[in-house]
């Protein structure tokens, strides 16, 4: 047995909620520009929606099935659910308070949200006309009465409960049974509708739910409207495709998209004015209790704020643009492959442009000596030029193998379309691997050269998605190292089902022993730990959840090894427990870009090793996904990756330190110490790199100087 106790582990759901609370803190922060704060509010909501659809739904399933499953914290699912609900209520309350404050600020700048009660005659005329022309044709009232089964409500859709009263005519007929109708607020229309200008108030918006409520009186002939109350249902949407049985995964997913709508409700949000009697009735119909019901003080579904943020002008307050830098060497080189053949390059997104990756695929597609291109596509954006290049390559007669992961949660529809296009172009398209989600991000190019076959790899922590490449921080390495060529080629042979896994030369892969490799590296750090060369493990990831790895880290801490980890989201490890984790420091950074890379650094007795990975340290990643873990062999590339870690741990602006009770507190710079915002520092360092290249030519272009922090060379 491990010897660690349940209280040494934080509950993962509660830890996740703390992450969302840190996102909310960005929305609350006065130092963040107004429109960015709106966006953070929207992110909090969209995060919560997914959390309910997947994690809370899972808790309900565990409770319903009386499952004996417990996390390492040993908490009963019922207890977890109660704590989760309580914390969500707190977060939602703060979120709406923040919204209120923001609406005041927006008003000061000239933007006004006009509620239904405040529509003037002019507004009503304008909106009535718009309603009749645009909305009315698409509204479908659903009767709620004893004669009909309760209507099926879409997951995440906002509905209006329209309380009806029959007019005297209908009262005389025998059909006079209808108490109410439900109507969905159409999701295809913008939620915020601009109203005619008024003096001094340049931007006025009405909300779609108010417009529908206001003009729906005539939807049901013979009835009068008595009241309109908004509510919203969130359902269990976890994708549990039965891999073994599904003959055609593609078909299974399309089916799954439909069944998603039919999952059990896990949350109901109701507007401020809905009478308790109606709430009770809905609860009864949907088998929900007060625990799953959330009374919302304003409009439902703050993800609509994404729309508002996008239409308001920049004067309202937006981040100053940090235009991604052109990677100097990879932009000026005549050929990507020639450059990579000479040495390895690291590309740090989004501080640098994603172009070199696209360029590499495009060059490969048109190069007559390229024989094959293989790539894993997990979340492809709609207009991906990479997909375009792959199609061209297939048409040019190259062997193109594309693994399209159809189970990237909530992105399936986009991926299915691309998969079909590639297939038609003659590429060898694989729709995922039965039983495992392909999460690795790898590109392999096989090229015939005068001295033989050369294989080029791009291995990354981020997806081949040019949209997220502007928003997520990620690291990717370009290399022509033959060991990587052999390993990645073998990895593709494994994921295409051509071969059993080999013994790798350099990489490690999940589910083929990645956890063991990580634990072995942690244990090695313990073995090499001496007073002269103290052990040091530094890492960066999105989530730290895997019990076996956390236990290994505890053992390392107990042995005196310093453990410093940047964990953006969930962290089940508790730092600072006496005798267990005193030497562990957990820091979380939440800033304008989504922190995404997985890096780890082992001091290794002075012979530092740095690895990148596609995997978080989670059971899900290490057991149920195909993941890659690879060392950075080139010294300069390794230094660049270590610099990323340095910057993160030095952050005093956007960093949070995890406390041993599982809560977080903002890191503040000590008096006199420099103020560091790591994302800004990394961006500036990229800009300086470009400037240096422009002024000094190409010598020492990637030489990153690391200042000594103390006289003894540490």
């Amino acid at each position, binding site marked *: 047995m491990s010897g660690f106790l349940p209280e040494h582990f934080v509950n993962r759901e509660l830890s996740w909620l703390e992450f969302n609370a840190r996102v909310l803190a960005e929305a609350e922060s006065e130092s963040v520009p107004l429109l960015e704060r709106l966006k953070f509010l929207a992110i909090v909501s969209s995060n919560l929606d997914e959390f309910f659809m997947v994690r809370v739904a899972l808790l309900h399933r565990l409770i319903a099935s009386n499952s004996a499953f417990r996390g390492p914290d040993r908490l009963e699912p019922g207890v977890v659910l109660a704590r989760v609900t309580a914390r969500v209520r707190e977060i939602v309350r703060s979120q709406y308070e923040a919204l209120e404050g923001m609406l005041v600020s927006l008003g000061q700048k000239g933007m006004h949200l006009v509620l239904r009660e405040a529509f003037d005659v002019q507004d009503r005329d304008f909106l009535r006309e718009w309603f009749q022309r645009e909305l009315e044709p698409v509204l479908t009232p659903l009767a709620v009465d004893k004669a009909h089964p309760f209507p099926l409500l879409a997951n995440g859709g906002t509905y209006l409960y329209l309380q009806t009263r029959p007019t005297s005519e209908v009262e005389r007929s025998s059909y006079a049974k209808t108490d109410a109708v439900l109507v969905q607020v159409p999701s295809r229309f913008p939620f915020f509708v601009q109203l005619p200008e008024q003096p001094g108030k340049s931007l006025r918006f009405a909300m779609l739910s108010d417009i529908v409520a206001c003009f729906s009186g005539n939807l049901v002939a013979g009835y009068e409207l008595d009241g309109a109350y908004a509510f919203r249902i969130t359902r269990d949407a976890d994708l549990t495709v039965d891999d073994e049985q599904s003959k055609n995964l593609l078909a299974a997913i399309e089916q799954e998209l439909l069944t998603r709508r039919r999952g059990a409700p896990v949350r109901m949000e109701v507007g401020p004015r809905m009478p308790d009697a109606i709430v009770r009735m809905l609860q009864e119909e949907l088998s929900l209790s007060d625990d799953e019901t959330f009374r919302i003080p304003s409009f439902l579904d703050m993800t609509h704020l994404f729309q508002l943020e996008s239409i308001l002008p920049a004067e309202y307050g937006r981040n100053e643009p940090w235009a991604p830098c052109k990677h100097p060497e990879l932009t000026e080189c005549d050929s990507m492959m020639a450059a990579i053949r000479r040495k390895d390059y690291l590309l740090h997104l989004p501080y640098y442009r994603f172009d070199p990756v696209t360029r590499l695929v495009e060059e490969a597609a048109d190069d*007559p*000596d390229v*024989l*094959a291109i*293989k790539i894993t596509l997990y979340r492809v954006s709609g207009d991906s030029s990479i997909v375009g290049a792959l199609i061209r390559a297939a048409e040019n*007669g190259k*062997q193109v*193998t594309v693994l399209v992961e159809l189970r990237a949660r909530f992105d399936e529809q986009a991926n299915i379309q691309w998969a079909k296009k590639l297939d038609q172009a003659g590429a*060898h398209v694989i729709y995922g691997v039965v039983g495992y989600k392909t999460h690795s991000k790898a590109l392999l190019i*096989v090229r*015939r050269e*005068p*001295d*033989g*076959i050369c*294989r080029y790899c791009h291995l990354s922590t981020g997806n081949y998605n040019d949209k997220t490449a502007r928003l997520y921080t990620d690291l990717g390495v370009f290399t022509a190292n*033959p060991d990587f060529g*052999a390993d990645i*080629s*073998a990895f593709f*042979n494994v994921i*295409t*089902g*051509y*071969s*059993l896994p*080999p013994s790798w030369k350099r990489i490690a892969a999940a589910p083929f022993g990645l956890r063991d490799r990580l634990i072995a590296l942690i244990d090695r750090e313990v073995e090499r730990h001496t007073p002269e060369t103290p052990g040091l493990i530094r890492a960066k990831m999105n989530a730290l959840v895997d019990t076996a790895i956390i236990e290994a880290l505890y053992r390392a801490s107990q042995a005196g090894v310093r453990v410093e980890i940047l964990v953006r989201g969930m962290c089940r490890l508790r730092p600072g427990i006496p005798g267990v984790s005193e030497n562990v420091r957990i820091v979380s950074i939440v800033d304008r870009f989504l922190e995404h890379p997985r890096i780890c650094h082992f001091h290794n007795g002075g012979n530092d090793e740095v690895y990148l990975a596609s995997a978080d340290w989670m059971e899900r990643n290490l057991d149920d996904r195909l993941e890659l873990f690879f060392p950075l062999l080139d010294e300069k590339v390794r230094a660049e990756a270590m610099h990323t870690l340095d910057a993160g741990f030095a952050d005093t602006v956007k960093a949070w330190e995890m406390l041993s009770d599982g809560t977080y507190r903002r890191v503040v710079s000590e008096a006199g110490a420099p103020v560091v915002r790591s994302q800004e520092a990394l961006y500036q360092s990229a800009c300086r790199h470009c400037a240096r290249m422009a002024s000094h030519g190409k010598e020492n272009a990637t030489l990153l100087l690391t200042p000594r922090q103390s006289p003894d060379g540490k």
Partner: protein
Amino acid sequence: MKSTSTSKKAVREGASLSSSSPKVIAAIDIGATSVRMEIAETSGYGNRRVLDRLVHPIALGADTFRFGAVRSETIRSLCQVLQNFQHAMGEYEVSHYRAVGTSALREATNVEVIVDRIRHETSLDVQSLDPVEEGRLTYLLLKPHFEMLPRVRPVGKPFLTVFDIGGGSTEIMVLKGRNLILTGSSRLGTSRLTYQLMTEAISATQQHMDSMVTNFVGAMDELLHDYPAGECLIINTLLVNPKLWDGVSPNELGSLRVNRADIAALGVQARRMAPDAIAERFDMPIVDAELLAPTITSLEHIAAYVDTPEVQLVSLDFPSGLMLEMETEMQGSTLTDLFYQQTLSSVSGIMEKYRVETAHAEHVRRMSMRLFDLFSELLDLTTEDRLFLEVASMLHDIGRFICDRDHHKHSAYIIRWLEVAGLSEEALDLVALVARYHRKARPRSTHADLGRLSSQNRMRVIKLASLLRIADALDRTHKQMVSDVRIEIHDDSVELLAVTAGDIDIIVAVLKQKGAVFEEVTGLKLLLRKVAP
């Protein structure tokens, strides 16, 4: 070796390749439990860079050794795997490949159907590998492993025994130094054992397996009892898995050295566990897990029989052997050339076993080789013919082991039933006939054994026998009087110049009768003249 159809793409417009560029070749080995492929780039013999290695489990042996034939659904899976492999070959535009199947394919009663289905569905040409060629490849691949073995053997046990434990049989080699002196085969096969036990539905499976293995290993004694082994090398891919052996780490060639206690412990464990538990515990495909118990049991018995404290476990990378062979062929030579010395050394072992009179045999061999080199052009003979003649001359009197009378006939059937490293059954048949005609009756098509050969092979036998008869005549006295022989060719005759200090009258007399075949074949009169040394 085959050229791939995809190679046409290599000359696609724009491809800028000089002819000296490395070639990409592939080798596929269809084994009893898996199909393996290696794709490599070669710039000449042994100068090779592996690009990809693929392994896909498929239980061909389960069908062959259980039902005799490979079932249709297994053939379908095999074709699917090969289609995938072919796709992988396309990614490198492989120019040449070789695809072979070993015992599980060879011994399937529907081997032709399988090969045809594969050709139809993948356009890959698969060859069922001749056991002799398999042996040659095995030896070739083993060579580096010999270097890793302890140099000194225990006193009185000078031999190295190699057991290649396969699905259908166990192939045995005995070596002295690095020379192969004996080869043999046993019906001890792990897949065969597993599936025979399954079909027989025996409750006391383990005891039954034990007794079967005991019988097979007992039978090996017939072959091995004169060759006490001081060192034992086991070829078996399944066993060369460090996960099976606690605290044993592979040497630089990936082979493992295990002791009898380790073997016994694993045996106990493997026989106690169900295959799925074995697969889980040792992280191996289920088709392999099913074979662990019979394999380890076979190893236990072999190790006990050989009585060495430790054995060396070796896994042979068969595709890489095929590649060596392809590289050899690309240089214009054949594996027979490479293996020539091993064949001869294995023949020497046989001579010892059958107490062949070495001085005479050695002399006849020397003379026939001399004659071969003098007449090969005239008679249009090949390197392979030279090997056949050499073996036949070494073994022509082996029949005396039975009885002196008609010993040429005894020689013929003994040779036919021998196992000689590097010689196929067909080759041994020819060698046997050459030896058979070293005396007495001249070769005639009416002789049944000769008559059933193709006319081309019949001519080979006659030409080689004609030389052997002369060589044998030159040592008629068994006193090795003639030290060398030279020739002078005239318009209508050949004059043999025998370098000797002795009397040649008896040789002249014998040649009158024995030289007739030569005269018939060449149309030249054979004369003999003595030359002083």
